[in-house]
């Protein structure tokens, strides 16, 4: 049953895309591509739900030889465990809802069928990534989702910003992917296989247990970090995060599906998949990168005005959270947050899409009167507001919004639920539980190991949680509360059609914890072994194993509690009890702290943006340096300049010309260095030295030929004279001598 189900899940969206591509070659469109794609996704969703029953069976239901090279073979196959099923359901569910939402949102677009075809291709690629049982398959899906992201960000390619953004996204993630590929090469060179777990004890997960010794550990750490590089690119972690805010140039449903719920979460999924090969060093690197990302992105989000960019930075921040969780060993917490985040962030994006759509339709209507031929997505240049070089379209600028809660009640309520969830408002919202699990897990690890690193990470996470609550409520207050700031636009705004609102409601329902419980109370959902992580003093106990044991009704969705702890701890129950106790305590502390921090954030936001007790502008003026820090995206520029200045000192003046930060232009920058200098030099060398030598040889030959050709008179009799005279001479010479 398993293999056919997974096959259907993969093939349904692929078929929808293939139909589009084949018809496209004949320059036609399937008229109801939207229904077809949506139907395909719903089929996939149904199959995914059926798969829940199958998790306990064989984890590798299908393995086929993909490449056989005699001595070396690569196989492809399905890997089915609880993580796979969760990812499958998240992807198919969000994808289905986004499909439905898009039927309304993209209505009237000249390339409407293409949009759905691309969404189908994306869904296929993402699902392929999720079910692959080997690194090569994951890498294939990994790059394919990158391609779809490229195609969909650049969907409105007439806009130069979109064309730039899609290129930037592809190239930035590719930098990370190359790191991942090198990591794969290392694993392959060591193990001779890329299968994770092929059922015959020769997968990477089994082989990795056999490693020992310092040399092996250094090597494994490097490999792990390199694999993580792929996740850094795809999940937009610092320092490769700059592409994600730019990716908001794509249509909003795309942002919801790809750049919030699924593709960017693939990085987290990858790290979770590779959990068994992580060493203490690589784990710590991952945790720190995640922590820094969470904090940095959150602070940048505070000062954004583009509603989609706020959400984009929020996404980066939350992804950092998940990385932090997995890096700190809280495997289940990380994946739990991935799931909850997928729903509420998709909801937030779709909600913002609904708001944009409300303004947008007005805009389109406005333009139609004058330029009937214009597409609905061209913007009036005069009304563009500039935000650090990037232009905020007016329908996405929160300074144009306000008071929308009466105009768009359903959108408002659903978005509010999502905001409460992401902010960590206790007990009834899923975001609280998942975030709390992370905080508790990190603090538990810190206390258990007495690890300063993990205390620092906990601090970062806590701070980020507070800031998240602040800026998310800032968004709500600016958009839905207060007086309308732009009366004309406000008047035109309206609630979205049902086809767009229904997905919002479904996602809002999914933001309540009851729903998540269905997947996270399984007994078999527990972290895999990490053979190379050993606690300083104790036998290793996963922080996750203690989560469910807290007092506040955790058993609702807790991973079965003491049982898992004992399994992990093995015979050494004394230590397990110790760890058990520590984690219990940690979770209580973390929960109290997180509630306080979230409350503080919401309170401040309320004071600033709703009651206007304090003036945001006033604070910005007072703390000008801090404000500038956030406004300029944390002055990453300076940081990067500082690192790279030693390498490219002479180049720095050129960079100064662009008042852009290096981090914003890291891809462009590297491209330009190579283009301006290296390529020019190589081109010069090629033309002058290498080619010049060739030409010299030819010239010498040419000159010699010029001399010699005088002999050729063209008169045939002269030739005959010479020939015959020569014959006579030769004969005479031979006769004489």
């Amino acid at each position, binding site marked *: 049953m398993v293999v056919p189900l997974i096959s259907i899940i993969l093939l349904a969206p692929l078929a929808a895309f293939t139909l589009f591509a084949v018809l496209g070659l004949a320059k036609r469109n399937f008229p109801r591509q939207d229904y077809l794609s949506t139907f395909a996704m719903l089929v996939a969703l149904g199959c995914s739900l059926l798969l829940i029953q199958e998790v306990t069976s064989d984890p590798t239901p299908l393995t086929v030889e993909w490449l056989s090279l005699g001595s070396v073979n690569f196989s492809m196959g399905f890997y089915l465990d609880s993580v796979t099923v969760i990812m499958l359901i998240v992807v198919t569910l969000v994808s289905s809802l986004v499909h439905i939402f898009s039927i309304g949102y993209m209505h009237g677009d000249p390339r409407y069928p293409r949009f759905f075809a691309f969404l189908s291709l994306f869904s296929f690629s993402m699902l392929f990534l999720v079910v692959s049982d080997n690194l090569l398959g994951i890498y294939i899906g990994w790059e394919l989702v990158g391609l779809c992201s490229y195609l969909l960000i650049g969907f409105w390619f007439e806009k130069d910003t979109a064309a730039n953004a899609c290129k930037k996204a592809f190239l930035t993630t590719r930098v990370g992917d190359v790191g991942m590929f090198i990591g794969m090469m290392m694993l392959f060179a060591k193990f001779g296989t890329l299968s994770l777990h092929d059922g015959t004890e020769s997968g990477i997960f089994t082989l990795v247990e056999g490693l020992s010794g310092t040399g092996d550990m250094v090597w494994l750490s490097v490999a792990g970090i390199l694999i993580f590089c792929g996740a850094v690119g795809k999940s937009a972690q610092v320092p490769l995060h700059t592409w994600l805010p730019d990716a908001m140039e794509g249509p909003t449903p795309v942002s919801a599906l790809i750049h919030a719920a699924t593709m960017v979460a693939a990085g987290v999924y990858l790290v979770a998949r590779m959990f068994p090969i992580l060493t203490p060093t690589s784990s710590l690197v991952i945790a720190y990168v995640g922590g820094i990302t969470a904090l940095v992105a959150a602070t940048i989000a505070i000062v954004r005005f583009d509603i989609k960019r706020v959400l984009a930075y929020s996404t980066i921040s939350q992804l950092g959270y998940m990385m932090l969780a997995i890096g700190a060993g809280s495997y289940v917490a990380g994946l739990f947050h991935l799931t909850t985040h997928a729903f509420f962030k998709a909801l937030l994006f779709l909600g913002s899409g609904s708001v944009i759509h409300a303004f947008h339709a007005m805009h389109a209507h406005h333009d139609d009167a004058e330029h009937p031929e214009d597409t609905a997505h061209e913007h009036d240049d005069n009304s563009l507001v500039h935000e650090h070089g990037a232009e905020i379209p007016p329908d996405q600028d929160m300074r144009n919004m306000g008071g929308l809660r009466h105009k768009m009640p359903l959108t408002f309520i659903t978005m509010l639920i999502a905001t409460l969830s992401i902010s960590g408002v206790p007990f009834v919202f899923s975001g609280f539980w998942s975030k709390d699990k992370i905080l508790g897990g990190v603090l538990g690890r810190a206390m258990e190991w007495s690890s300063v690193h993990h205390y620092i990470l906990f601090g970062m996470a806590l701070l980020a949680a507070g800031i998240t609550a602040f800026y998310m409520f800032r968004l709500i207050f600016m958009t839905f509360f207060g007086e309308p700031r732009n009366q004309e636009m406000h008047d035109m705004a309206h609630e979205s059609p049902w086809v767009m609102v229904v997905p919002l409601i479904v996602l809002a329902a999914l933001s309540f914890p009851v729903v998540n419980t269905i997947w996270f109370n399984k007994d078999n959902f527990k972290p895999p072994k990490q053979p190379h992580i050993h606690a300083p003093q104790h036998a290793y106990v996963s922080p996750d194993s203690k989560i469910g044991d807290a007092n506040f009704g955790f058993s609702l969705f807790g991973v079965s509690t003491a049982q898992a702890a004992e399994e992990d701890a093995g015979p050494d129950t004394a230590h397990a009890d110790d760890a058990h106790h520590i984690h219990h305590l940690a979770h209580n502390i973390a929960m109290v702290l997180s509630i306080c921090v979230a409350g503080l954030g919401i309170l401040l936001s309320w004071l600033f943006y709703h009651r206007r007790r304090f003036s945001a502008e006033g604070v910005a003026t007072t703390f000008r340096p801090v404000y500038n820090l956030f406004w300029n995206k944390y002055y990453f520029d300076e940081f990067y300049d500082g690192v790279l200045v030693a390498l490219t000192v002479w180049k720095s003046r050129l960079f100064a010309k662009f008042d852009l930060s290096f981090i914003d232009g890291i891809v462009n920058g590297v491209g330009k260095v190579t283009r301006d200098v290296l390529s020019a030099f190589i081109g010069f060398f090629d033309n002058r030295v290498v080619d010049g030598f060739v030409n010299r040889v030819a010239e010498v030959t040419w000159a010699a030929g010029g001399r*010699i050709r005088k*002999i050729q*008179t*063209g008169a*045939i*009799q002269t030739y*005959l004279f010479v020939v*015959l005279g020569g014959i006579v001479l030769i004969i005479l010479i031979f006769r004489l001598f």
Partner: protein
Amino acid sequence: MSLQHYLVISSILFSLGIFAVLTRKNAISILMGIELILNSCNLNFVAFSRFVTPAETIVGSEVFRFDGQIIAIFGIVLAAAEAAVFLAIILAIYREFGSIRPDEVDTLKG
């Protein structure tokens, strides 16, 4: 009338042909020279076939010695073909250059 008689005649014809080819300023005269050369060759073939080639004996003891003669027939055919093509080329050259003097036709001059 030994073999050498014929060879002498043939070599005189050959030399005269060469002389014509080398000195004449008219392409048709050159062609005539070439014909002389070809005739001298044919004469050689026939003469050698008569005097040198081994006899072929057929029932009835008649003696035939003429492999060379057949070669000479082929030679005549070749001469005819060559003359036809040569004259065609001369006509084409005449149209192109307005002259058939070989020293005026020197497009190949380097």
